[in-house]
């Protein structure tokens, strides 16, 4: 029909030439056709029309694609489609079911659908490039266009998740990052921020993007076995008031953090600290070995509490609260116990202080202030059993006094002194009077060099003591003592001199007060009590311990499930048990199986006599 041919040429015409078309005329024609009969319209007009359109766009898209970068292509397509929609809307009957829509679809399919992989993978300008360069507008456009075609949105989601995974792998598998826990975590936080930024700004916060990138993060975090430890260390740093600067060996960190799309910046104000801690907890959520994290967090928290290193108690409590919400009461029960102990200790100390004032303070002429923390065993991480060594008389006096006081108050309790965990503030007179904070063992040794001290047999300042004599006087083990002497005589603060001046401490060495000692600062500390990352051996040991602890937990889960279900088949049991434990760790199926066998042996379960893969609970 010539009228149709005329319409088509008019339709196509404006694309090649900027010719005004008479839209009204066009519209009247199509409407007339439509009125004549829907099937006539469909058969004689719409069908050839669609075919023409398809051919046209197939050709045009190919040409565009070859000549343009991905973002430019998308811009062109966006414009094209807008034109097309406009035309379609004004010239074609819109109440024809699917008419408008299906015509649009042809255009969309030809321009986008057919080329979506090509676009995404376009070398130098495809999705990866856009993400790298943070081209939010281009990404937005891409998302908008792609979601109009089938599978387009999904393709983007998968590729974005893949990008995230690749970037994440780079971070966690880099040896530089692995060597510096703080840097490691910072980089991950930056990546997370970057991905969140994309999802929010370019992908309209679409859930599917979030879900898929989260899956990538789960994979990333569990690639490196020390992630739990490192996250705890990072949090420890922020809770101590550290500003999040990386250690010396990684200046490169600050350069990349200014990169567009992810800046962590300095962490100074309370809001910033809280924000970064929350972000760290987001990473925590992706860990499959949450029980490892718990172990480290407990250790690091203990150090912070015992040495008063927390910046803000409120912040500590907030974190515990967040963990509780995340993992349940069980997870944080011990941590909260630790806090309680610290609080109770303050009260105890106050009461003791008052008591002391009344009785003994002036008596011995030496005033020793005691700062005490009473810890409930079971809440706190276990430490190697403490040595018993001899304290100087005035220290021993106050120690005994406290013990009497406490046991008086709390009949039936047992106190075990953890001297090694404590420290002493010592006033030392050299060229100036210094105030030095040092571990208890150090103090015990130094006091021997005083007048009237064990080695001072009339020597006063000139007292010389051999290692053996010190050992005898203090009761410290030789290995421990060697370390102490190393610190006192050979490290940064040489409070003592060693004879002979060798690098190692030997049993025959002699020590005297180092009269030439001087230091710029009057007040200083002799030991570093910051939490540091474990050595490889320590890490192995921790891992072994955690593995050991997991066995009984798996047993408990199995028994719990079987007790309530009475009978269950093998696969279902595996699934249930894994579900029960997943807030703490992900058990290997092989491990669960072994524990099941153990429980069969101990007659908690039996195999059903009718089917060998069904278990029955033994009441």
């Amino acid at each position, binding site marked *: 029909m010539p009228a149709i041919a005329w319409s088509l040429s008019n339709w196509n015409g404006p694309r090649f030439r900027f010719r005004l078309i008479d839209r009204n005329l066009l519209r009247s024609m199509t409407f007339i056709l439509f009125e004549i009969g829907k099937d006539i319209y469909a058969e004689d007009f719409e069908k050839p029309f669609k075919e023409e359109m398809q051919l046209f766009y197939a050709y045009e898209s190919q040409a565009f694609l070859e000549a343009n970068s991905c973002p430019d292509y998308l811009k062109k397509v966006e414009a094209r489609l807008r034109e097309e929609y406009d035309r379609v809307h004004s010239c074609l009957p819109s109440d024809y079911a699917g008419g408008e829509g299906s015509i649009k679809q042809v255009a969309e399919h030809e321009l986008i659908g057919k080329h979506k992989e090509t676009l995404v993978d376009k070398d130098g300008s495809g999705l990866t490039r856009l993400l790298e360069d943070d081209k939010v507008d281009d990404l937005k456009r891409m998302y908008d266009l792609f979601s109009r075609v089938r599978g387009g949105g999904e393709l983007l989601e998968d590729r974005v998740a893949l990008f995230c995974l690749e970037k994440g792998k780079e971070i966690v598998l880099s040896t530089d990052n692995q060597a510096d826990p703080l840097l490691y975590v910072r980089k991950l936080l930056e990546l997370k921020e970057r991905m969140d930024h994309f999802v929010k700004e370019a992908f309209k916060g679409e859930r599917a993007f979030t879900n898929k990138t989260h899956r990538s993060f789960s994979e990333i975090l569990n690639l490196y076995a020390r992630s739990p430890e490192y996250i705890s260390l990072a949090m420890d740093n922020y809770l101590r008031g550290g500003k999040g600067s990386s250690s010396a060996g990684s200046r490169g960190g600050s350069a990349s953090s200014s990169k567009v799309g992810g800046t962590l910046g300095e962490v100074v104000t309370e809001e910033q600290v809280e924000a970064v801690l929350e972000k760290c907890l987001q990473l925590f959520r992706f860990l499959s070995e949450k029980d490892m994290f718990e172990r480290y967090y407990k250790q690091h928290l203990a150090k912070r509490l015992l040495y008063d290193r927390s910046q803000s108690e409120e912040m500590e409590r907030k974190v515990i609260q967040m963990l509780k919400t995340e993992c349940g009461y069980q997870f944080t029960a011990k941590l909260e116990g630790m806090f309680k102990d610290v609080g109770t200790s303050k009260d105890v100390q106050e009461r003791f202080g008052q008591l002391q004032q009344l009785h003994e303070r002036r008596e011995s002429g030496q005033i020793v202030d005691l700062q005490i923390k009473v810890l409930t065993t079971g809440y706190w991480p276990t430490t190697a059993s403490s040595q018993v060594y001899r304290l100087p008389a005035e220290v021993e006096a106050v120690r005994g006094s406290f013990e009497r006081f406490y046991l008086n108050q709390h009949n039936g309790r047992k106190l075990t002194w953890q001297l090694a965990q404590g420290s002493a503030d010592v006033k030392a007179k050299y060229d100036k009077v210094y105030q030095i904070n040092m571990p208890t063992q150090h103090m015990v040794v130094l006091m021997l060099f005083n007048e009237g001290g064990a080695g001072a047999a009339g020597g006063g300042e000139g007292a010389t003591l051999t290692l053996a004599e010190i050992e005898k006087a203090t009761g410290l083990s030789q290995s421990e003592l060697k370390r102490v002497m190393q610190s006192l005589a050979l490290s940064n603060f040489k409070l003592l001199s060693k004879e002979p001046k060798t690098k190692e401490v030997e049993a025959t060495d002699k020590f005297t007060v180092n009269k030439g000692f001087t230091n710029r600062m009057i007040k200083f500390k002799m030991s570093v009590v910051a939490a540091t990352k474990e050595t490889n051996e320590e890490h192995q040991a921790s891992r072994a311990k955690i593995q050991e602890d997991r066995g009984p937990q798996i047993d408990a889960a199995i028994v719990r499930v079987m007790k309530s279900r009475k009978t269950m088949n093998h696969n279902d049991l595996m699934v249930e048990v894994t579900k029960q434990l997943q807030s703490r760790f992900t058990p290997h199926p092989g491990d669960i199986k072994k524990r099941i066998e153990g429980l*069969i042996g101990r007659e908690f379960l039996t195999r059903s006599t009718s089917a*060998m893969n069904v278990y029955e609970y033994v009441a």
Partner: protein
Amino acid sequence: VLLSTVEQMPLKDLFYGRKKDKPATTGSVPAAPPPVPPKPAVSKDPVVIMFERYKESDEDRIGPEGILLLCQDMQIEPTDVKILILAWRLNAETQGYFTRGEWTTGVSALRADSPSSLVSRLASLDSQLRSGGATRSPAFKEFYRFAFRFSRTMGQKGLEIDSVKALLMIVMPPGHPHVHKLLEFLESTPTIRGFNEDQWTSFLLFSHEIKEDLSNFDPDGAWPSIYDDYVTFCTKH
């Protein structure tokens, strides 16, 4: 060749000679019926006559020596499965011993009145239990489980590996699937020191269900993990 260590072990020691678990008749043999009032010196009952022949001189029960004598009379080796079948039918409590009650009740039920009739009864039981597909029968299953429990040292839950190997050879009919390979596996895995009941019981089902080429073995299945290791071993060799 594999089983030389087991074969060389004196059978007596393997099964009957464990002096350490020889229980005293007083009190610690639970199912022993109370001492029967002294019978007339000569009994006409052939079953009792047999008992008298084999019983120990100082105890009212048949002991390891008697059993060896019985085997001679029946003209079978002490390692013959028929002795185990006998123990099963007698519901014997303790390996190496038959009490008077166990003997008289059980042998009478078998309707045997002489060693030769006894041995032929046992032979027919053997073929009922173990020939053809009979190993899939409930009766064999019961016998198979009995064999494990019977062979255990009193108070132990498991059976040491040498006994396991010997027991497998006796109880399973020759050519039974997986037996040979399993023995090979156990031989080359000295870390396996014994079997628990679950592992023993599962083997029967395993041998019936899992094909020789292991094609239908599901590593994620509920088989005791020893069989996962067994399959790994087989695929390597």
